[in-house]
C-alpha cells in the first residue's frame, strides 16, 4: 500500500512537470498553428538559468551573512556555477532560502519569456501557416541554442541540491513522501487551474479562445491578434522555462540533453491528449506520469519503449487523441 502511494505521488509529480511543457506547446499549436521544436531548448535554458542564478544568489547571501564561508568547486564555462559551503552548524533562515529560491525561479522564467519573445519576433513570425518551414526553422533553433547552453555553461553534467526546505522526506506509514514531489504537484495543479481560469474567465482568455477557433475573425473585429500571438508564444515558452527550472532540482543532475528528452515526452503527451487542446495536455500529462511509474513497477524492461508504444497505439486506434480533444487545424 505504502509503495503505491509513493509511486502515485512520484507519477503525479512527473506528470506535473511534463504538463508545464506540454500545455504551452499545446496552446501555441492550437491557437497559432505553430509547432515549436525548440520547446526543449527553452526548457533547458530555464533549467540552466535557474541553477546559475540560484547558486549565484545563494552564494552571495551566504558570504554576506557568514564572511568565513568557503566556496566549493565550480562548474561551467563562460558563466560559472559555484556553490558556497555554509560554515559548520550555520544555516540561512527559512525566509532567506525561500526568497533565493523564488528569485531564481522568477529570473529563470523571465529569461525564457524574453527568449520566447525573441524567437517569435525573429523566426516564428516569418513562417505562420507554413508547417514544414516551422518544423525546419525551430529544429535549427533547437540545435543552435542547445549548443549555446553548452558553450555558456559547459558541456559536462554536474550535480545540484534541492533547496533545503524542500529537500526532506516524510515517512507516512511505510510510504515515503518526497517533499519536492508534493511541491511539484501543487505547482502543476495551480498552474493548470490558473491557466484554465485565465482561459475561461478573463478577456485575454476570451481572445485566445476565439483565436483558437478562428484567428481571422478575431482580426476582423479589430483586435491585433499578432500581438496576442507573440504574447502567447512567450508565455508558453515561460511555462517551459518554469518546467526546466523545477526539473533540475528534481533529478539533481544538470545535463544538456534534458531539453530534447523532455521535449519528446511533451510531444507524446500532446499527441495522446489531442493536438492543440489544453485540457487534453492536462489529462495526457497525468496519464503519462502515472503510466510511467506503473510500467516501471510492473514491466521494468519496457519502461523505455512504453511511452512511444502507448503513443503509437493511441494514434492507430484514436487519431484524435485518447480523449478525442484534438483541435482540427490545418
Amino acid at each position: 500500500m505504502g509503495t503505491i502511494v509513493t509511486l502515485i505521488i512520484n507519477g503525479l509529480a512527473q506528470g506535473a512537470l511534463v504538463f508545464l511543457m506540454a500545455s504551452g506547446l499545446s496552446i501555441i499549436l492550437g491557437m497559432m498553428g505553430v509547432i515549436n521544436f525548440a520547446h526543449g531548448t527553452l526548457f533547458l535554458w530555464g533549467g540552466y538559468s535557474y541553477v546559475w542564478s540560484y547558486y549565484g544568489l545563494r552564494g552571495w547571501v551566504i558570504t554576506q551573512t557568514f564572511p568565513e564561508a568557503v566556496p566549493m568547486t565550480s562548474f561551467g564555462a563562460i558563466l560559472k556555477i559555484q556553490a558556497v559551503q555554509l560554515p559548520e552548524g550555520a544555516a540561512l533562515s527559512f525566509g532567506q532560502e525561500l526568497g533565493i529560491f523564488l528569485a531564481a525561479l522568477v529570473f529563470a522564467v523571465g529569461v525564457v519569456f524574453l527568449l520566447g519573445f525573441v524567437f517569435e519576433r525573429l523566426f516564428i513570425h516569418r513562417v505562420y501557416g507554413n508547417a514544414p518551414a516551422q518544423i525546419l526553422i525551430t529544429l535549427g533553433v533547437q540545435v543552435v541554442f542547445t549548443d549555446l547552453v553548452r558553450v555558456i555553461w559547459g558541456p559536462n553534467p554536474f550535480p545540484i541540491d534541492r533547496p533545503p526546505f524542500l529537500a526532506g522526506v516524510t515517512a507516512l506509514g511505510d510510504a515515503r513522501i518526497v517533499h519536492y514531489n508534493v511541491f511539484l504537484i501543487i505547482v502543476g495543479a495551480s498552474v493548470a487551474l490558473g491557466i484554465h481560469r485565465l482561459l475561461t474567465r478573463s478577456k485575454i482568455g476570451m481572445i485566445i479562445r476565439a483565436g483558437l477557433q478562428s484567428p481571422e475573425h478575431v482580426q476582423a473585429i479589430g483586435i491585433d491578434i499578432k500581438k496576442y500571438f507573440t504574447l502567447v508564444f512567450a508565455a508558453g515558452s515561460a511555462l517551459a522555462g518554469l518546467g526546466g527550472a523545477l526539473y533540475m532540482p528534481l533529478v539533481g543532475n544538470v545535463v544538456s540533453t534534458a531539453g530534447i528528452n523532455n521535449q519528446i515526452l511533451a510531444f507524446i503527451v500532446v499527441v495522446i491528449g489531442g493536438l492543440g487542446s489544453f485540457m487534453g495536455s492536462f489529462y495526457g500529462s497525468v496519464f503519462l506520469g502515472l503510466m510511467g511509474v506503473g510500467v516501471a513497477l510492473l514491466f521494468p524492461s519496457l519502461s523505455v519503449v512504453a511511452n512511444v508504444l502507448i503513443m503509437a497505439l493511441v494514434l492507430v486506434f484514436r487519431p484524435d487523441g485518447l480523449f478525442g480533444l484534438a483541435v482540427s487545424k490545418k
Partner: protein
Amino acid sequence: MNLINLYAKTQNRWFRLSALLSLLLVFLVLPHFQTNSQLIMMSRIFILAVYGMSYDILRGYTGFINLGQAIFFGSGVYMGVIFLNVQNNLWFFLLAAVVIIFYSLVFGWVMSKIVLRTGGVVAGAMITLALGEIVRNIAERWRDVTGGQDGLPLRFSRVALDPLFTDRVGGYYFALAFLVIMTFILRKFIHSPTGRVMMAIRDNDQRARFLGFKTDRYKTIAIIVSAIAAGLSGVVFAVIVRFANTDYLGIGYTLNALLITLVGGTGTLYGAIIGSAFVTWIQSFLLDLGKMYEGFTLLRFPMLFIGSVYILLVIFMPAGIMGGIYHLRDRLNNRLQELRERAETGGVDKASHRTANLPKE
C-alpha cells in the same frame, strides 16, 4: 548571346552524356592524387549524398518530414559493422545489405502505419522524432550488441583480407560505384509513374486523392523506398568509417540529411550531391580549425555554425543551390522561348535588346 548559345548546346543529349562521363573519369583518376584523409572525405561525401537523396525522396517528392530517418541510416551502420565483424569479405557485406533491406522494409512499413494515421506534417514530424529518439535510447541500453555509448569498432582481426575493405582507394571506388548505382536507381524511381503520383501528392494532396489515387499507399511506398536507401547508405558508410555508435541513430544525423537536402535544394535529387559535398567539407573544415586553435571553445561546437547556416538557409534560400540553378534554367528557357517567338514574328531588335539584360550566370 554566347551564354545562351552554350546553354542551347547543353540541351544536346550527347553533349550532356559526354560531360557526365568526363566528370566520372575525373573522379575515377582523382583518388591516385589524394591523401588518405582526403580519400575518406570524398568517400563520405559520396555516401552521404545517397543518404541525402533518400531523404529528398521523402521530403522533396512527397512533402513528408521524417525526423527519424537516422534510424535507418544508423541501423545500417550497425548492421554493416556487426556483419563485417563476423567475416570481413564481400559476401558478408552483401548479407548485411540484404538484411538491412528487409529491416528497413519492415520498420518503414510500421512507421508509415503509425505516422500516416493523423495525416498532418506536424504530427508526423513529432511522432518520427519520438520514434527516432526511442530507438537511439534502446541502442544505448542494449550494450551486448551495440556497445552502448562507447560504440562498436570494426575489427580487422578475423579478416579474409579483402582489399575493398582495407584499402582507402578501394573504399573510395566502392563508395563512388554505390553513388552512381543508387543515383541511377532512385532517378528511375522518381521518373516512374509512381514517382509522378508522389509529386502530385506533394503539390496537392487533396487533388491527388480526388483523381482516385490512394495517397497513403504512395506515401507508404515513398517512406519504404527512402528507408531502404538510407539503410543501404548506412551499411556502406560502415565500411568507410569502420565504427558505429549511437550518434548515427540520433536527431543529429537526421538533421544532417535535412541540411544536405536543404543546401542542395529539395525535390532535385542531384542537389543532395552538392549538399553532401558542402556539408561534409564544412564539417571537416571546422574540425581541423578546432584542432588548430585549441583555445577557442566555440570551435568545439560545430553544430553552432552548421545550425546557424541551416537557419539562414531555411529563411533566405529555401530552394537551395540546385533549386536556384533550376529556377535560373527555367527563366532562361522562358527567355529563349520568347526570343524564338519574337524572331519568328520579326521582332529581332527588341529581342537582342532584351538579352543584354540577362543575369550573368
